[in-house]
């Protein structure tokens, strides 16, 4: 610190530079005044004084002549006037009172002349005094006029000098100011502006400012100090940026890891939820199946007995009136046997077959089976099968599942619509989707749609068993028995899509167990 202060004192400072500049300009100005203004002033005064002196002499001569002329005229007039007055007075003098006495007449005239003379002497004295006073006033006036002329002349000279000198001095001053301005600009303004711009850049965060200190004055030392400070800031910023980048990388990695773990957790959670759901459904179906199987077995025996008895009576009965109720009994018994048969299949599903099947073929057969009914309902059908869809299983059972799904779809479109069936392979799975644009399923019913005996439509006397709520439950049990799963996606008023996923049969005839 002490060293830098010493350096600052030893440099040729800005103040010294400006002082030197001002001194040089003052010397130039002094030389200008001495060499230009002073001789010009002397010449102007000399030129102005000469006519003034000439006018003064003329005025003096004129006054002298005027006084002489006036005096002469006055004297002549005075004599003439005195003579005339005396003549008139003599005419008015009543000389007849003296009765021709010349002595007395002469005395009277002399008396008048004396009075006249006394008056004239008095008049001449006052006239002379007045003329003196007037001459004095005139001389005073002449002097005042000359003084005024002198004052005007002096004023004119002063004005001329002022104008010319001011013009010249103004030029010098302008040059001085320009020089000073340039010097101040180069010595002070420019470096300060650079420092200011650099400071503004630093304030905006830009540390790549370029500073070029010139010389060794105060400004240059300021620039150097600021450049050092900027350099320190630049190093500090680089270090901070480096640490910030490392921190950002760590953050990104952490975020990626968290996302991955979250996805895994979500997937595990979804699996658990599906497994739980499947487990709950399986347990519910198993318990329902056990119960239904026991009941169906007993009920099937009773229905078989009723059907046998009815067929025996019908074999012998010819009277129509008596055959009609017997036929009703026989058909009801057949239907009851059918229901119990389904219940038994639900309760004790047969193990899937081991035959290799093409699900596409099954889809075409099932579609061909329901197409007549679809045409009757005004339902357009569309079937898309993407390649071969090999699976292993029970062809009849799977056919039953597909017919059941297609039948449900047609029932959902009593007023017409579109029935779309697609089959494709997706990884290790073969997928079949049946979509209708029918009435759809309420959201509250979706969780129970595969439950046994749950139906969104009721049965009637003409079609007993239809709508008993076993179709989808049986289908679900069949697909589940084949290692697959069944899903439904539906919304009320917007149709439903039932999707069946089965393990695909590999090229070697092996299927991969679903997890």
């Amino acid at each position, binding site marked *: 610190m002490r060293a830098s202060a010493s350096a600052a004192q030893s440099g040729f400072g800005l103040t010294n530079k400006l002082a030197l500049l001002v001194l040089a300009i003052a010397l130039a100005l002094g030389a200008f005044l001495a060499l230009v203004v002073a001789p010009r002033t002397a010449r102007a005064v000399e030129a102005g004084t000469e006519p003034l002196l000439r006018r003064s002499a003329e005025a003096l001569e004129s006054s002298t002549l005027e006084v002489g002329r*006036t005096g002469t005229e*006055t004297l002549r*007039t*005075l004599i003439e*006037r005195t003579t005339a*007055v005396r003549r*008139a*007075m003599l*005419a*008015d*003098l*009543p000389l*007849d*009172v*003296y*009765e021709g*006495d010349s*002595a*007395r007449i*002469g*005395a*009277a005239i*002399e*008396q008048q002349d004396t009075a006249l003379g006394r*008056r004239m002497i*008095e*008049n001449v004295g*006052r*006239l002379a*005094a*007045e*003329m003196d006073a*007037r001459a004095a006033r005139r001389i005073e006036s002449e002097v005042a006029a000359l003084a005024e002329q002198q004052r005007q002349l002096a004023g004119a000279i002063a004005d001329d000098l002022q104008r010319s000198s001011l013009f010249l001095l103004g030029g010098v001053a302008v040059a001085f100011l320009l020089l000073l301005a340039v010097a101040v600009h180069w010595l002070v303004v420019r470096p300060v502006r650079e420092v200011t711009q650099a400071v503004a850049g630093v304030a905006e965060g830009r540390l790549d400012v370029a500073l070029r200190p010139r010389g060794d004055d105060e400004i240059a030392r300021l620039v150097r100090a600021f450049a050092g400070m900027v350099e320190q800031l630049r190093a500090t910023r680089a270090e901070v940026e480096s640490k910030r980048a490392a921190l950002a990388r760590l953050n990104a990695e952490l975020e990626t890891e968290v996302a991955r773990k979250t996805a895994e957790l979500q997937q595990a959670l979804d699996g658990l939820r599906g497994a739980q759901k499947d487990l709950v459904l399986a347990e519910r179906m198993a318990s329902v199946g056990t119960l239904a199987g026991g009941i169906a077995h007993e009920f099937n025996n009773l229905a078989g007995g009723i059907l046998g008895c009815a067929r025996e009576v019908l074999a012998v009965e010819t009277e129509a009136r008596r055959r009609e109720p017997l036929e009703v009994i026989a058909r009801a018994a057949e239907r009851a046997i059918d229901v119990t048969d389904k219940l038994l299949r639900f309760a004790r599903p047969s193990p899937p077959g081991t035959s290799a099947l093409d699900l596409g073929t099954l889809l075409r057969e099932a579609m061909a089976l329901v197409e007549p009914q679809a045409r009757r309902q005004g339902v357009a059908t569309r079937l898309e099968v993407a390649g071969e869809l090999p699976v292993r299983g029970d062809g009849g059972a799977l056919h039953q599942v597909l017919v059941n799904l297609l039948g449900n779809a047609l029932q959902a479109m009593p007023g017409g619509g579109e029935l779309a069936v697609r089959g494709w392979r997706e990884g290790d799975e073969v997928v079949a989707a049946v979509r209708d644009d029918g009435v759809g399923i309420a959201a509250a019913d979706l969780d129970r749609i595969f439950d046994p005996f749950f139906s969104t439509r009721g049965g009637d006397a003409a079609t007993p068993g239809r709508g008993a709520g076993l179709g989808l439950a049986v289908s679900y049990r069949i697909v589940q028995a084949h290692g697959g799963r069944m899903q439904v996606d539906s919304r009320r008023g917007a149709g439903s899509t039932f999707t069946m996923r089965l393990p695909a049969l590999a090229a070697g005839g092996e299927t991969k167990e679903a997890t």
Partner: protein
Amino acid sequence: MPLALAVAAVPALCAVAQEAAGPERAAMRVAAFFWHDAPNDEAAFTGIERGLRAAGFECIWTVRRAGSDRERARQQLLEIAAARPRILFTLGTQATLLAKEHVKDVPIVFTAVTHPVESGVAESWQSAGGNVCGNSNWIGSEKVIDAFRLAVPRLRHLGMIRSTASGEVSAAELRQMRRYLAEPTAPRIELVERVVERAADLPAAANDLRARGVEAVWVPIDHLVYQNIQVLLDAVRGSGVPLVSSAQRGAEAGAAVGVLVDYALLGERAAAMARLLLLGKATPAALPVGTMQSSHVVVNLAAAKACAYDLPLAALVVADRILDHVEDPPR
């Protein structure tokens, strides 16, 4: 040299003393009547006394002054008539008119009457008529205007102030001046007249004339006006508009220029007229009204200065008297 002058002067001085005494005559009773105390009249009376002495008359004087009181004037004139003086001298117009009315048997010699015919003092300039004769201080308007123009060369508008109370003479002066200015040879000067009733009206009249652009204000032979001439002087003070006067003491009391006669000489001339009557050489009716040949121009430098007016040098040169102060106004 002084001794020689003294020796030469002794016989001359002896002759003057003898001549002033004049021929010896018997003492006689004469009277003089003044209407008011006017300087003109007093100067004229001085001239009368001197003229009578020069003519060798020893006079026993009865002098009466009415003080502008008509009743007193009547009584005084009746008293004079009863005393039967040899001659009654009347000073001024009003005094003469009253004397004509009350004194019938005594010769009346008037003097200092400016306009004897117009005022009714005289029947004509050739003969005053009856027991009356005398002389006039009348000065022709031409001379008055010449004097005024001498003092104010740029004179084009001449203001004039007179009074209704004592303006008989001034009214006659005005008429005479108008007649003169109407003549084709007269200079082109417009006369602007203002008439006042009392002295308090004088400043307003003077200011009014100044507002009319007059170059000078004329103070005529009007007792009220020239008695208050300093009021007028105050009104025009510093204005550059001087007062000019035809009254005896106008110039002495405030006018820059005055034109007047020598009233003492006028009185002497009246005395000469009385001598003829006393010696029986003439009757009043046979004598024409006398006038003066000479007139005096008086300039007053102080009065002109008070008006901020510079008198021309020519006026000073031709002036018979140059005054350098303003006297108290006549009373």
